[in-house]
């Protein structure tokens, strides 16, 4: 339900008992459904192609991110790793993901101690990790800040991330436009947010509000889930009780969306349409099939970590970007949050996370 809950899970993992883990490895080996894991790994990474991709100075990239306990986050780590593997001149040093800011601080300190050439950090909480990132910068290690922003520009060389505000904005614009086209005058619009005390949730909601405002609409009911399917199911089943008629719903996250959709099916409701968030494979398949209330999703690209690895390597090797003029890399890079609908879904499906 809140950050501490996620942090708790991480501590539990540290307590893993050896015996059970051994059994688990065995079980995972026989029953896991990731039979196509090897091909999965590459789809978020870009193949080598330009001058910059030719082998250069050997560099070590340190990588730290929150626990991969969620589809999107798992894809981030996986894509970063896959991208690093593309380069023979990159040594990739990743630490075990954690949702405990305290543990993440120590991990980053460890990476600093190992004197990596460049750091890619996706902080669990940007504010909490700012000072340790600044320590790295002070120690002469450039930091690529991934997604969740540090508090101070002194703490990073380059920021690469998604556009949470833009994500909400695009969802709002899509819904507004669709309702306008249908000629609905005063629609009831629902919003199922993610974990409410995260900065990104606030930005998404602000963007959504503004997108709707363009068409003179506003959010009728807003409730927060916690990015898990069971919370999505629980919250949505109650929301459907609260509003006997809905026109549209934006759900911030496709993982929790599985539960949200289940609740809608169980309640037998279909008078509205829904827009998802983040862009999971499951959601895109549903959009393509066009047989559920889910009509669109706004992407929050999980391949941003691959780009970050690319940039990190260039920074460490003191190179610029080919397609830009100038010696130095940009200081920030905001990735576009595309709206995926039935029309363009084929274009995005390969890059979706599962």
């Amino acid at each position, binding site marked *: 339900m809140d950050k501490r809950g996620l942090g708790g899970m991480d501590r539990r993992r540290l307590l893993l008992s050896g015996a*059970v883990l051994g059994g688990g490895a065995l079980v995972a080996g026989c029953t896991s*459904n990731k039979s196509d894991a090897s091909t999965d790994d590459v789809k978020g990474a870009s193949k080598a192609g330009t001058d910059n991709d030719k082998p250069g100075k050997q560099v070590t990239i340190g990588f730290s991110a929150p626990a991969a306990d969620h589809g999107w986050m798992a894809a981030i780590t996986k894509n970063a790793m896959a991208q690093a593997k593309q380069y023979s001149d990159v040594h990739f040093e990743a630490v075990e993901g954690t949702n405990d800011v305290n543990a993440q601080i120590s991990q980053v300190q460890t990476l600093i101690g190992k004197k990596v050439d460049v750091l890619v950090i996706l902080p669990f909480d940007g504010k909490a990790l700012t000072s340790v990132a600044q320590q790295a910068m002070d120690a002469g290690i450039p930091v690529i800040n991934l997604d969740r922003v540090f508090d101070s520009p002194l703490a990073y060389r380059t920021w690469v991330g998604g556009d949470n505000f833009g994500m909400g904005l695009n969802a709002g614009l899509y819904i507004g436009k669709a309702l306008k086209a249908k000629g609905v005058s005063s629609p009831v619009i629902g919003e199922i947010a993610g974990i409410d005390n995260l900065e990104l949730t606030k930005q998404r909601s602000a963007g959504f509000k503004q997108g709707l405002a363009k068409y003179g609409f506003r959010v009728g009911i807003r409730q927060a889930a916690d990015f898990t399917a069971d919370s999505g199911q629980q919250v949505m089943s109650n929301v459907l009780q609260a509003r006997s008629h809905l026109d549209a719903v934006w759900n911030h996250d496709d993982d929790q969306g599985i539960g949200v959709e289940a609740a809608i099916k*169980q309640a037998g409701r279909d008078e509205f349409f829904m827009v998802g968030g983040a862009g999971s494979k499951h959601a895109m398949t549903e959009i393509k099939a066009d047989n559920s209330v889910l009509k669109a999703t706004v992407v929050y690209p999980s391949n941003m970590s691959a780009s970050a690895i690319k940039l990190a390597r260039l920074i460490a090797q003191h190179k610029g970007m080919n397609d830009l003029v100038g010696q130095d890399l940009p200081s920030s890079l905001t990735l576009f949050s595309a709206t995926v609908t039935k029309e363009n879904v084929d274009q995005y499906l390969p890059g979706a996370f599962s």
Partner: protein
Amino acid sequence: MSQQTSPPGGSGPLPATGQGSPSGSARQTGSSPGKGSGPSFLGHMGRVRNLGLFVVLVLLCVIGALTSGNFATRQNALVILSSAAVIGVITIGQTFVIIGGGIDLSVGAIVALASVWCTTVATQSYGLGGMVFCALAVGAVVGLINGLIISYGNIVAFIVTIAMMASARGLAERISDRQSQVVTVESFNSIASTKWLGIPLLVYILAVAVVLGWVLLNRTTFGRRTFAIGGNQEAARLAGLDVRRHTLVLYVLSGLCCGIAAVMLTARTTSGASNLGNLYELDSIAAVIIGGTLLTGGRGSLIGSILGVLVFTTITNIFVLNNLTTDIQQIAKGLIIVAAVLIQRRGRRTATP
């Protein structure tokens, strides 16, 4: 106090130990809530004992009906009951374990593991029966491991189940590779959408589990021994009870309840994921405690636990119906929990010597 001490006939307060040669303390305490665990009186005493919680629930319903036109509908009642079904079944197992003097902190993780295990591609290929069996078996086996370590390894339940909480969730993450596993077996998903006579199957499952649990706790030798072992483990041992085996069975029971809950939750969310059931251990323990069960064991009520679950789910429902923000929900939830416990305690206060 007088309502607590009413004898089964309901003929008013008991006279304080008037007979024989009473001990000093008997004269001073003079009440008899202890007999609440007696099977022949539980119907009556149970109701009285949980009166406070019942009042809380009624108050909540009044608030719900006043603040939202959508609250007092048949359909909303069914939504509350289906929401309560998953955590309710878990809480039944938890109630047994806590009355028996233990605690199970691994319930949420067992739910996650059972849910993930029964939704792998391989398991799904066996269809509905295979998936349900898998979830129940995983729950029972994890419970068995808990029980074996606790009763034969002589390690306190708190430690064993907290370790299991980590291991089981870790294993769930490993099996699922931290991805949501969507259930494609439609007959499985229909567990959550099937309705008989307009009432969801999940509600029937909860009802059957409550009735079976109540009978097991209050009408069988097993239940009686559970109270005894939780009340005084040494005395139970010296009375010739097989405390170890009984404790073992309690944890298997709790694991099995988690397996059933995993089936329900997985069908509800149409997916298995390692992050399902997060913090369910706290929710179920909180429900047991506000339901009036002693955390130290030996005394408790299954009906109280279920009322506790209903209080929680009703609170959430009212919050959403009124579109309250998360922060206000959390504040109010905390206040209501404390208030419920205070009202519960008021209802059963006895004279202190």
